[in-house]
């Protein structure tokens, strides 16, 4: 094994073992905390990497005068203005040392009136698409899809005031079958059973994957070409 391949494997092994052993050996906790803090700092560098990668892609598009390069100009412009407003804390009433999102600053205005509405507006489209999908795609084809449909139906009806009205005629001794009582039961028994089984399955997979990575069997950090 070459040094180039051995060093990353060694890093993974040492770091993971420190984190695992520190749970059982308290004197190692400060080292675990430092490693986790390093992770947090490198995560912030990853944001820089993401931003720079985005700008590079759009800059290449503008240079090539590719189709739709005008939108790339818009993207880079929005990026530049927001970055300048945030890094320089333009218009911030508390100055360069204060909170970056302090009210009255240009950055806070961009976040409140550009980022927020654009984010929510794009997300709100999903409501229309889910209505269209409910009409076109949600079909009763077999037993399993019928169970799924009936559950979704009960949940959508039961989580509104109509749920109580629809079954209000039931006598008191059958109160447990009223929709407002059936829905919490569905959430606390069958839904919990299914979610728990999924979580156990995911946990087994995550434990196996983590062990494979720690032991060097899987090496997702190698990059392309190897």
């Amino acid at each position: 094994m070459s040094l180039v391949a051995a060093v990353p494997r060694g890093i993974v092994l040492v770091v993971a073992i420190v984190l695992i052993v520190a749970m059982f050996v308290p004197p190692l906790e400060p080292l675990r905390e430092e490693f986790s803090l390093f992770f947090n700092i490198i995560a912030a560098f990853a944001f820089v990497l993401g931003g720079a990668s985005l700008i590079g892609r759009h800059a290449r598009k503008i240079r090539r005068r590719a189709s739709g390069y005008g939108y790339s100009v818009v993207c880079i412009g929005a990026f530049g203005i927001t970055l300048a407003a945030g890094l320089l804390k333009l218009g911030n009433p508390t100055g360069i040392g204060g909170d970056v999102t302090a009210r009255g600053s240009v950055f806070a205005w961009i976040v409140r009136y550009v980022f927020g509405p654009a984010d929510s507006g794009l997300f709100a489209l999903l409501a229309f698409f889910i209505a269209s999908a409910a009409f076109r795609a949600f079909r009763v084809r077999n037993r399993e899809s019928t169970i799924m449909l009936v559950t979704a139906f009960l949940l959508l009806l039961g989580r509104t005031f109509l749920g109580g009205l629809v079954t209000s005629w039931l006598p008191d001794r059958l109160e447990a079958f009223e929709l407002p009582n059936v829905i919490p039961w569905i959430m606390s028994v069958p839904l919990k059973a299914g979610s728990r089984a999924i979580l156990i399955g995911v946990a087994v997979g995550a434990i196996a994957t983590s062990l494979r990575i720690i032991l060097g069997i899987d090496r997702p950090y190698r990059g392309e070409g190897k």
Partner: protein
Amino acid sequence: MVQLGRWAVMNVTGRRCIYLGMLLAVTVPMIWRISFKEHPTPMVRDIFATIEKLPKNARVLFVCDFDPASAAETRPMEDAFARHLCLRGVGLYCLTLWPTGPIEIDRTIRDVIALEFPSYRYGQNFVNLGYMSGNEAVVAVALTNFKKAFSTDVHNISTHDASRLPMMVPIEDLASFDLIVDVSAGYPGLNEWIPYGAIPAGVPIVGGSVAVGSPEIFPYIPEQCGGILVGVKGAAEYEQLLLEQYPQLDRPECRIALERMGPQTVAHLMIIGLILLGNGIHLWRRHKEAAA
């Protein structure tokens, strides 16, 4: 020009009718101010009781892990929790693991705490610790050394500064808190605070989640997590409980989720109608094909 076939034209027109119907289903109840009384479910009552039982000056870690896209569901929860916690007189330690979280914390502090609870002093009754990158690694550090994870607040005051942030003095690790309240919209959120924070530290946790992410949390309820508010309905039920317990809160800003349940109900009925209509057409076509 491309000539669309008859079915393609009907397809596009039908889709636009559905979109228009959805828009009307949401807008008309809003204009007519249709709203309903909510009947809180046992899980929401349990969460309410957990916060009601908190003693004055209890230390509560208030986490806001969401963004503007999910604010329609999570903001009413955040406001309701903030109001209830302030009414109980507890100390609020606000932070977030989402980069978009700080603007939500700022808004809650400005529109709820500062406006409705003027006796609440920064540094004594509430503190804004802001955002830290790293997702579950932040929780892992905070578990054993909270001030190492959050060494300054958003105003860059050191969390070791006892004169300006006296409420940070007794905080050593996550176990120093009496309760964690997390309003989350996905990753990272409750699914990280419970296994990496609340369970190892032995701290009770309750919270709220967007409806789509709530099934992931149910396996932890009620043993590891006291309960969660699920979507706008959960927020509306909590607001109802707050209004019943604290009648002085009967103001428009304390009824946001309750007001939203009107359009929500009508939209649900429309979706149910569309499912039934779609399946009806599908079964009728199958019957015609079988007969042919």
